[in-house]
């Protein structure tokens, strides 16, 4: 049904027709007509953030915890440029986000008007696609196409720049219809390649699944199929940071996370395996370590919906382009029809070898009765929150790696972290987005003191909407990961890696009308965590931890999977000159 309406009304109508219930945004001159339409309706809830970067991260948290795209509405110029970090974060982690930006009126574009920026130009490299809409008649179909692009194939952020005169002008609204655009990524994998993977599964003596965020992006069905395949074959499975929860941490075949701060047994299995099945993972440099020593003796199969991921970093023997759920379904079907064969005895031996590696107990740390060890804090947080309907977000740094190591995720969409871009300041606004989507759930942001300060203005948002997000800050008064690298690489010269003049977090919470909890005593930690969980509103938990703890295990830059540093290892000279240039 076609209808005449203003561009601003069209925006709201199109969002409703796309099933959007929540928009994260911040108003400004160039989006006032759209904000006026938002004022006049009740179907779409607008969450007012305190900074546009926060809006995008909140939308990411919403998207990752629901599987639906997140929507952001910001103004022109600084509104758009402030959103760029969040948009880039979503691109790197393949999160579907629709960003609507206001723009100066079409007749002023190019005149250096007030709050004008070349938004489509600035965001071209950090969006999956973007549009500048100059004609109100094209607005509705562009928004519908934007949802199609953001959510099809490898998901990602898209941006629509809407000049103010286009918002005021009247045009014809068209409702969504199945996309007729040429952009229709292929989801079914090639059957010949899949059959070859099945044959490799049947022959493998030392197989390992290496899974990533693509499994989560493919939807809950993909995680279900992955679990079925892993448990039916009995193959061990590891995951990237982004893929945690696709296979349950309590599962029999779970190795823990792999990579730079991954578990010893996971990295050793990657190095020694004879069949590596990559599922929705992209061989990121945090995962591979030294490329020429990466899993030297394995056949590599790679399932990915993005053809450019295949052979980008690591040469693949069995490339399968397709959606994880579709491909895994076919793998299972073909494997079953051929008699569900594996080299069970050899795989058993392989598990025994892995158990030997497990005995290294790579996450061991020195407990203390005087100070809270960060690892201990997360172990207690895990133990005390495990039974809850729980979602965890993180900032970026040591606390993020410790959270990945010490917290277990039983389901997909429960773990939100900035993987590819490594954005400090992601976790707090992301936790707000998650809590908006899941009002009854326990939402915890595991943070470091430095990261958390980067978007602390969002306390205003948490307080305004009375969102009971728990900000669990491991406070070491340091930029912990930077400090660790300076110890390893720069002769312990701790250049600007400490937090001078930290706020009193309890008073800070109280200033926003929230609850603050301070704890620096291991003996009182459990009670303090329980107090945090039981408080019905937002909490800032200032957990004062050991200041010089390093995050282990660690594959130093330029080293291979089997050259890991374990806890208490000497870090002197751990990174050689060749690795020093790497980040």
């Amino acid at each position, binding site marked *: 049904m076609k209808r005449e309406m203003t561009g601003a009304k069209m925006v709201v109508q199109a969002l409703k027709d796309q099933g959007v219930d929540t928009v994260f945004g911040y108003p400004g001159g160039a989006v006032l007509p759209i904000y006026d339409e938002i004022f006049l309706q009740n179907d779409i809830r607008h969450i007012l953030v305190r900074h546009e970067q926060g809006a995008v991260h909140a939308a990411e948290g919403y998207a990752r915890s629901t599987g639906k795209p997140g929507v952001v509405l910001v103004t022109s110029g600084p509104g758009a440029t402030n959103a760029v970090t969040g948009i880039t974060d979503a691109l790197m982690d393949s999160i579907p986000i629709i960003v609507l930006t206001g723009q100066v009126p079409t007749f002023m574009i190019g005149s250096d008007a007030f709050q004008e920026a070349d938004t489509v130009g600035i965001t071209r490299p950090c969006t*999956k696609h*973007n549009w500048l809409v100059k004609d109100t008649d094209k607005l509705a179909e562009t928004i519908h196409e934007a949802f199609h692009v953001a959510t099809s194939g490898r998901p990602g952020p898209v941006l629509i720049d809407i000049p103010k005169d286009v918002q005021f002008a009247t045009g014809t609204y068209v409702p969504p219809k199945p996309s007729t655009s040429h*952009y229709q990524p292929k989801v079914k994998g090639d059957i010949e*390649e899949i059959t070859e993977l099945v044959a490799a599964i049947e022959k493998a003596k030392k197989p390992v699944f290496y899974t990533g965020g693509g499994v989560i992006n493919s939807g809950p069905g993909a995680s279900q199929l992955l679990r079925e395949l892993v448990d039916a074959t009995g193959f061990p499975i590891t995951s990237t940071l982004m893929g945690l929860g696709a296979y349950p941490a309590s599962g029999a075949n779970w190795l823990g996370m792999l990579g730079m701060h991954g578990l010893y047994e996971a990295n050793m299995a990657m190095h020694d395996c004879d069949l590596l099945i990559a599922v929705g993972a992209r061989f990121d440099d945090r995962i591979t370590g030294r490329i020429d020593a990466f899993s030297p003796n394995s056949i590599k199969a790679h399932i990915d919906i993005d*053809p450019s991921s295949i*052979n980008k970093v690591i040469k693949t023997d069995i490339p399968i382009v397709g959606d994880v759920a579709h491909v895994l379904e076919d793998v299972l079907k073909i494997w079953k029809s051929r008699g569900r064969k594996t080299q069970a005895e050899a795989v058993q031996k392989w598990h025994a070898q892995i158990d030997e590696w497990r005995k290294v107990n790579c996450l061991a740390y020195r407990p203390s009765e005087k100070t809270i060890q960060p690892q201990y804090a997360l172990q207690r947080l895990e133990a005390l929150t495990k039974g809850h309907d729980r979602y965890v977000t993180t900032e970026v740094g040591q606390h993020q790696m410790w959270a990945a190591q010490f917290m277990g995720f039983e389901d997909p969409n429960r773990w939100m972290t900035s993987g590819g871009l490594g954005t400090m300041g992601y976790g707090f606004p992301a936790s707000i987005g998650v809590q908006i989507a899941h009002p009854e759930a326990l939402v915890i942001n595991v943070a470091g003191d430095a990261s958390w300060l980067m978007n602390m203005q969002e306390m205003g948002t948490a307080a305004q909407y009375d969102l009971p997000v728990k900000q669990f800050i491991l406070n070491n008064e340091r930029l912990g990961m930077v400090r660790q690298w300076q110890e390893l690489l720069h002769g312990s010269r701790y250049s600007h890696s400490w937090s001078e003049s930290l706020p009193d977090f309890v008073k800070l919470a109280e200033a926003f009308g929230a609850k603050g909890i301070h704890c620096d005593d291991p003996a009182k930690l459990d009670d303090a965590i329980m107090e945090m969980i039981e408080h019905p509103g937002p909490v800032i938990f200032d957990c004062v931890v050991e200041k010089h703890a390093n995050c282990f295990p660690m594959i130093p830059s330029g080293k291979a999977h089997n050259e890991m540093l374990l806890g208490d290892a000497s870090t002197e000279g751990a990174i050689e000159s060749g690795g020093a240039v790497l980040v």
Partner: protein
Amino acid sequence: MSALHIKKGSTRHSAYNLRPTFSDVEERHTIAVLVENEPGVLARVIGLFSGRGYNIESLTVAEVDHTGHLSRITIVTTGTPQVIEQIKAQLGRIVPVHDVHDLTVEGPAVERELAILKVVGQGDKRVEALRLADIFRANVVDSTLNSFVFEITGAPDKIDAFADLMRPLGLTEIARTGVAALLRGD
């Protein structure tokens, strides 16, 4: 519409069935990209090359299907086989890109470039320039008593050769279009 007479969905070049052996030797490839002629599409393609550090030796673009609003971009690039495969895969990811064809792999292809050259001089040099232009089948498109402007079409190395010959004869300016290319045969 011969420019679009490329079989759709050709996979000979694609990552869908890619089994490369990585080599360090740099190769020159001519890639044809069919794109929707929408604002910013050229910037997307060029931004991809600069952002990911790929080479562009030559790039030409023009709308070739006015009703379907499709443009054809011809890019000559160099890189190791792995980089060339990445370039094609990355081009294929751009939303308004319809099709990517590696004419060097799918070839043989006809490659042509047009150049116009200004040669200034008198006497023997002027006569020699005209004589060489005749050999190269270059046309005179502008003439004064002191200068010629030649128009020449051909493969890039033919144009290079002609320009090299003109240099001592008074070549002052040259403008080249970059390569346009089509697969041979039907």
